[in-house]
């Protein structure tokens, strides 16, 4: 059984809407029965992306509009967060951990690093004065999809899949620790 579903939201670039956006996405993806950790990851990346659009894209101008689209295909969720703001001059520099174009605002410079770490796929496109689009994907290995795996591939395959997953998570953690040095 695969769930295919999608939603679209557009809202004013006001900081109040950061919480609105992440809660809306969390509620939408809850149909995949994600774990609390997965929900938290998704809420965090939505918050990062929307905050970027508000602060950097629109310079806190509430007349700007932030666009949010979420798609569920099978066990994978795709999130698109887009603005028509000022855009990013150099994406490679913007993606460096701890880089911020607005140090005077006490930005930590960790937004991109968090999005790249918490999601399976991450892609940014941007051009000066043409806005920024962030596309991200995450597979939800939910309780639902694990239960579906057991009868099809047998318990042994499921357990070895599980250990492979754990290895991947540990590798990911090591990678992220390395990048913080």
């Amino acid at each position, binding site marked *: 059984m695969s769930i295919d579903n999608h939603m679209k939201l557009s809202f004013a670039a006001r*900081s*109040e809407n*950061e*919480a*609105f956006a*992440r*809660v809306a996405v969390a509620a939408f993806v809850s149909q995949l029965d994600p774990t609390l*950790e997965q929900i*938290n*990851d998704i*809420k*965090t990346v939505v*918050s*990062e992306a929307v*905050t970027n659009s*508000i*602060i950097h894209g629109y310079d806190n101008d509430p007349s700007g509009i932030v666009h949010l689209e979420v798609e569920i295909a099978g066990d994978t969720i795709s999130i698109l967060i887009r603005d028509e703001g000022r855009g990013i001059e150099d994406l490679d520099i913007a993606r460096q*951990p*701890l880089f911020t174009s607005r140090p005077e*605002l*006490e*930005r*930590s*410079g*960790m*937004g991109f*690093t*968090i999005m790249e*770490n918490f999601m399976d796929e991450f892609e940014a496109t941007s051009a000066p004065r043409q806005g920024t689009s962030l596309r991200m994907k995450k597979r939800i290995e939910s309780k639902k999809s694990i239960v579906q795996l057991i009868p099809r591939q047998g318990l042994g395959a499921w357990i070895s899949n599980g250990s492979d997953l754990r290895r991947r998570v540990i590798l990911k953690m090591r990678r*992220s*620790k390395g990048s*913080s*040095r």
Partner: protein
Amino acid sequence: MSLQVELEQQRNVLIVRLRGELDHHTADIVRFKMEDAILRGRCDHVVLSLRDLQFMDSSGLGVVLGRYKLVKGRGGRMVVCDAHDNVKRLFELSGLFKILSFYDNERSALAGLEVVS
């Protein structure tokens, strides 16, 4: 979605309890309240108590890092206690885990500060 900031001073230590969600929208409240309490109460050290902080993103990291610099610049220490796993993970990812001390609860955080105060 909002954030409550509860402040308590115990001798020269300011305990800051955050309840709710810390993001770009709620970051200013934390910044102003902490700054005011540290400067007015002449606190040397800060315990950031995060048991009831349900959510934090990189805007939260920015605020914490800013207050850490303030406290350190005045010769004090800032420690964190009771943080949820999701909050801890962000501290790890940003490297803040290496410059802040983490404790399980307020009592052990205060005991940890006692040694240096």
